[in-house]
């Protein structure tokens, strides 16, 4: 799958000015996102993953600021676009056309006084698209998501259920055929059944429409079934990334292992699982050394002094981890079930729903 990167993120920092100083919620993030892949970003709430996602279309809410370099390479061969340097008008045109985003507030993502159809129409108009053709595509998308286009287009948001709105929003996000779609906790507010059906729909859609997905979630189990590649975020930094299999079977960072260990059968989400001991870090603080050192059983003097860089795990070309002692992690944090068992229960879980 290693195709061309569709987006290259270099040295990305997101900061909020606050009373107590600057709150840095994404720190020195570097990653390439490849065309047609599904990239999963995992982390606890407050780890900075949503901020990272929003930066990809320079959409961090005020007064937050994204700094660094985000280069978008249009798959149709256009010139590379430096996202963070776009003018307001350029950014407006770039958004939704190139990169679209679905986020967790689907319940209130629609203007309450407009019909769903009006949302489709205004999006097409403001991006200077052919409205008639676009609406036709929109209806097709709704149908692909098992919605009745006639009914949904004429409905007001309050007349639809949460699941219908969420699917409507996904259809709306694909309306302009974006090259990259960001899904920020797309199922967080839905019940389990609806979550699973939306996930399977997403998988279909991704195949049918050749889109690249970045999916943000704290639901590790869900992601393991969907993502090609995963990034783990802890304390506003990427601490491990690699192909999904590598992360699940060969997690190298103590935090990732703790996550996996506390996610029985990969079925419950992180916030419900037994907590990882220790406090979560404060975004205003400047920490020395490894951000996880205060909670890590492997931490030593060096970890508290020096910040471990993200570097390749031995024997893999794709997996990277930010830990000085990753070789010892497997032994120190024992996963309750063997990889085989975990795989089986995960698979069973996936089929069962």
């Amino acid at each position: 799958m290693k195709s061309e990167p569709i987006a290259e993120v270099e040295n990305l920092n997101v900061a909020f000015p606050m009373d107590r100083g600057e709150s840095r919620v994404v720190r020195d993030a570097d990653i390439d996102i490849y065309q047609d892949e599904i990239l999963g970003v995992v982390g606890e709430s407050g780890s900075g993953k949503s901020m990272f996602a929003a930066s990809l279309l320079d959409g961090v809410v005020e007064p937050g600021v994204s700094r660094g370099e985000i280069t978008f390479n249009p798959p149709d061969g256009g010139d590379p676009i430096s996202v963070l340097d776009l003018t307001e008008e350029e950014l407006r045109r770039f958004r939704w056309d190139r990169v679209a985003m679905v986020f967790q507030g689907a319940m209130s993502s629609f203007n309450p006084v407009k019909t769903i159809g009006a949302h489709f129409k205004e999006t097409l108009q403001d991006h200077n698209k052919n409205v008639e053709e676009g609406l036709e595509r929109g209806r097709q998308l709704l149908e692909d998501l098992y919605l009745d286009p006639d009914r949904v287009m004429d409905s007001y948001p309050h007349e639809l259920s949460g699941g219908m709105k969420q699917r409507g929003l996904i259809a709306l996000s694909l309306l302009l055929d974006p090259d990259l779609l960001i899904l920020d906790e797309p199922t967080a507010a839905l019940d389990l059944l609806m979550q699973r059906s939306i996930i399977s729909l997403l998988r279909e859609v991704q195949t049918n429409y050749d889109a690249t997905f970045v999916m943000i979630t704290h639901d590790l189990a869900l992601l393991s079934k969907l993502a090609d590649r995963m990034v783990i975020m802890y304390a506003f930094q990427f601490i491990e990334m690699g192909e999904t299999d590598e992360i699940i079977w060969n997690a190298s960072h103590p935090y990732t292992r703790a996550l996996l260990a506390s996610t029985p059968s990969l079925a419950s989400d992180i916030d419900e699982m037994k907590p990882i001991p220790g406090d979560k870090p404060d975004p205003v603080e400047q920490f020395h050394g490894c951000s996880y050192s205060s909670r890590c059983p492997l931490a030593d003097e060096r970890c508290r002094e020096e910040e471990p860089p993200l570097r390749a795990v031995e024997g893999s070309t794709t997996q990277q981890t930010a830990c000085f002692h990753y070789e010892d992690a497997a032994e120190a944090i024992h996963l309750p079930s063997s990889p085989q068992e975990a795989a089986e229960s995960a698979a069973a879980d996936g089929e069962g729903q």
Partner: protein
Amino acid sequence: MNLNYLTRRLGQAVITFWATVTLTFALYHMMPGGPVESMQNIILQQVTTSGGSVDLEQIEQMVALYANIQPNDPVYVQYIDYWRQLLFEFSMGQSFSHQEPVTTLIAERVPWSMFVSVYSLVIGYTASILLGSAMAFKEKSRFDSIMSSIMVALQSTPYYIVALLLIYSVALRLGWFPTGGRVGTGVEAGFNLEFMTSVVHHAALPILSTSILGIAGAISLRGNAIRVLGEDYLRVAELRGLRPTRIATEYVGRNAILPMYTRFMIGIAGVLSSSVILEQIFSYPGMGLLMYNAINIRDYPLLMGTLIIFTSITIIGILIADLTYGYIDPRASGGGGTE
């Protein structure tokens, strides 16, 4: 728009009208000594100044003529009769002072008061919407805090003080506007430019003073707009790359103004209220001045009549607001009242 909602709003309007008319009827009876005794002196005054003399029976007849109340009938008959004359003869009695039917007197004045009221509502709320949104978009800026202070000052200034200050400054000192009246002397009424300019010229200061009543709306609009600016759908609209003008009008504007809409119409009650004082200050012959003159000579039929009409206008205003709200806010048609 569902039928249940419609009937509920209509029912409310009918109940309010019934309550007001019943109140005026009850007030006649609650006057010290009842309608006859309390109106006797006033009637006697009217008659004696015109040189006649009357006995009790004649006074009772006159009470019936003026107040639409037959003093000798049982109360429930009086009540039914009072309603009958109002609904089927459009009669609210006769004015002591003008010796004319109350309905005729009021009908002549209504358009003038409505003219001032409607324009001051429109101007007041337009100004408050513009100001409120400007304050919200520049939240916590210097402009916002200065405007907030000005708003405190405006909220603390009664409209009649504004009227006096306007008369003093732009009418008396600068002489730009007349101090009173509703049209220049010698201007011929009709559909001609001179007449219309004169009408606008005379109404300008009353309208301006009344429109201050709506200015407090700027503060609630500011609050609403700030709330909308934090809504998810606004963020999605920005991420969707919608044009800023569309976001400002169709997203922020519309959703921030919506909650004010019903209040806008109820505001007509406040504006009509103020006309009682303002029309006196500007000697503007509308319904308010009619009522003011009526109170000075205890012209009860005229007082009751103006109260009924004032309320009816408000009822109609609120009814229009309630019935159109469903078209403006799709969520309202399910009902839920005016909260």
